[in-house]
């Protein structure tokens, strides 16, 4: 009972602070929305494909028209025909307004149809992800275009071999057929996804179906750590003001004091997570509650380990400033390395391995197993177990080092 009294006192103290509201609620929601927005979570764009500028110096020749047609058929890129100068389009690529720009040189169609090798110029910053994706998309379209030309030439050769004499109309007809065939090629590669994305049948290509599926759990993980600042500061303040010592003169035991403070942090983080899960479910269209028990288990174990970290910080910090620094630095490390900011998949192998030594990576895995992969309770057990183990170790450290003066 005394433990609960102490926890309720701490919680009241925290709720009265603006900082608590900012760190626990406003910032995680704000950042979730922001990251969702910048990673394309609005879903409102008419055409989410990467824009690729096209300067046609071949004056609307037959191959330019077919090239635009094939580029437009791409899942990854869309052509933006431009009348601007090469310099202006190049600047747009440099400014990342365009992912790349293709220049069709004068006489391209005539020369290629005559069997000459003429290259299109592509202005692209291949060092960027958007640039390399655009380059690959353009390459596919150009290869198909040249393949269609080859098919038309083979067609003409075959006709000649039978004694016929193919004219321009024959070639144009063959080319048109080959281009049309590329819209429904005989052999294709279909990309399918497991889990929620497959259920939603969202075809956003290599991007997860709902951009908030990364941002929402990521910010949950990050700000659960930020949320412990206030509670850790209370421990520091009580020690500095000798309240802890005074408490020891009452009937409350040392263990009850430590557990009381721990309970405060646990409840606070759990409530924060509940609120963010509710926000994700209702406002962001993320189905956290499709596996309610698994989500609950993950929220409880996340609260367990984060509260233990908070208690350890409150134990180690001597001043309120130190409590902030001791919270923020682990927050940055654990969030960054745990995949809260960007999927660990885009990082190097060593980084991924190191990341999975941290509970944050397991928290992300656990939540995404439910949210994105569409798995069940069993997929939450290992992450929950690892977070619990972290919670126990950190709590033991905090209890061991806890000082009352």
């Amino acid at each position: 009972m005394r433990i609960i009294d102490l926890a309720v006192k701490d919680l009241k103290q925290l709720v009265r602070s603006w900082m608590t509201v900012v760190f626990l609620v406003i910032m995680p929601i704000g950042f979730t929305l922001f990251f969702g927005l910048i990673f394309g979570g609005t879903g409102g764009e008419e055409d989410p494909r990467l824009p690729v500028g096209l300067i046609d110096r071949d004056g609307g020749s037959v191959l330019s028209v077919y090239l635009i047609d094939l580029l437009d058929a791409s899942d990854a890129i869309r052509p933006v025909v431009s009348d601007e100068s090469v310099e202006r389009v190049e600047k747009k690529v440099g400014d990342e307004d365009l992912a790349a720009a293709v220049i069709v040189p004068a006489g391209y169609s005539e020369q290629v149809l005559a069997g000459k090798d003429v290259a299109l110029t592509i202005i692209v910053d291949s060092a960027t992800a958007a640039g390399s994706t655009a380059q690959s998309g353009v390459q596919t379209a150009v290869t198909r275009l040249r393949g269609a030309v080859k098919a038309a030439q083979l067609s003409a050769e075959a006709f000649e071999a039978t004694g016929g004499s193919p004219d321009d109309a024959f070639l144009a007809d063959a080319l048109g057929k080959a281009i049309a065939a590329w819209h429904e090629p005989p052999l294709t590669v279909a990309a399918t996804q497991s889990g929620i994305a497959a259920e939603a049948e969202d075809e956003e290509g290599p991007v997860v179906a709902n951009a908030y599926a990364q941002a929402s759990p990521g910010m949950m993980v990050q700000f659960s750590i930020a949320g412990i600042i206030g509670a850790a500061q209370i421990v520091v303040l009580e020690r500095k003001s000798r309240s802890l010592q005074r408490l020891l003169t009452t009937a409350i035991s040392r263990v009850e004091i430590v557990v009381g403070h721990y309970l405060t942090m646990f409840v606070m983080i759990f409530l924060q997570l509940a609120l963010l899960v509710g926000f994700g479910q209702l406002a962001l269209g993320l189905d956290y509650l499709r596996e309610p028990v698994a989500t609950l288990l993950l929220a409880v174990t996340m609260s367990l380990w984060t509260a233990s970290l908070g208690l350890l910080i409150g134990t180690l910090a001597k001043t309120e400033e130190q409590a902030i620094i001791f919270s923020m630095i682990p927050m940055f490390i654990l969030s960054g390395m745990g995949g809260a900011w960007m999927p660990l998949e885009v990082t190097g192998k060593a980084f991924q391995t190191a990341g999975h030594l941290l509970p944050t990576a397991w928290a992300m895995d656990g939540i995404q197993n439910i949210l994105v992969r569409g798995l069940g309770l069993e997929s939450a057990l290992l992450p929950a177990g690892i977070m619990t183990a972290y919670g126990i170790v950190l709590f033991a450290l905090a209890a061991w080092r806890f000082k009352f003066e």
Partner: protein
Amino acid sequence: MKTLDIAFKDLLRSLRNYFFLGFGIGVPVLMSVIFYFAFGGLASEGGFDIPQVDVSVVNLDEPVAEYGGSSVGQMIGQILEENESIFKVTHAESAAGARTAVDNQEADVAVIIPAGFTVAAFDLEGQAEIEVYQDPTLTLGPSIVRGIISQIVDGFAGAGIAVRVVNDQLDEQGIELDADSRWRVYADYGDWARALGENERFNSLLAIQSPAGGKDEDVNSALALVGGVMTGMMVFYAFYTGAASAMGILQEKEGGTLPRLFTTPTPMSAILGGKLIAVFALVVVQVAVLMAFSSLIFRTDWGAPGSLSLAIVGLVVLAASFGIFIMSWLKDTRQAGVVIGGVMTVLGMVGISSVFTANVPGAAGGFAETLPLFVPQGWAMHTWRLVMDGGNVGDVLLPFAVMIALTIGFFTVGVLRFRKRFA
């Protein structure tokens, strides 16, 4: 002289402060190091260290005696296996088994090659589809698998299209395409496609040109990225430092040292002036230390000296004056803590959002691209990006002018409010 004494004293105090050392220097360095290791810092040649993609292949296609005993499915599997630095290939017995491997996270991608794929590749009416089933949380690995398989499949599809076109064209002329001619078309198209693939990555099709100011492919990608991250961190934390340093005025007021100072013969303008100089000086120290660190460790290319000077000056004066402006509206350090922790973080993250989208195709378009320019950090970041992308003085003049205009506004309001408060 007294102004400088006060400034020097404040600067020394800040430099000894945990908060400045932790947030002003430690955290930005830490964040840059994290990004450095995240994006290939451990790679042997400084490029991106892409981890092996676990691919579960199920090949239901069978060799067809009629087509020389070949199997396109087998060939696809072999090509994936040959790229062992990129793919770790395992074989599944059935499509369900391969999908289960992905569902259980034992594989990143399942490649399901249907029965009769080879027949479809060589049949005039054939139609077949390879399924690339992926873990929905992954992007990079599956897209590489899809890219390679699509290239191979496009080769066969192109040959199939060529044969169909020849067949249709001859048919329209009343000529039947015999088996030998059909195979010749396949062979000719195959030779052409193979020659294209071997021709130094399609160089005969595309002449690749980097945009002026863009990064060449041989620039160390990880270091280029970290340079951007370090810039973002510098901008983000310079504003923190400006605000935290200006908070010193509130701290001294609460501690009673400021009112005591006002009782001395030192004029108020000298006292406030000294404190403001200390704010600017601290941001200068921070920017200098971070730039030196980044230059030494990450070999960051900061761009042309002229435009870089403008970016430095703009950042320092804007971060410091914004800190003074913000603090002039707050009553005490408690409020300041909330503002530094909350408001400055939000504004900072918005301002440097381009750092987070740098490696994500298609991210940060539209409103998300304009949004940063609604906060001062966004203008600073915009200027630094221009400089690091090779911009000259002319390129950065406009954002620099905006930064100076904002500085004048923030500084004027801030100083007037402090003067009024302590008058």
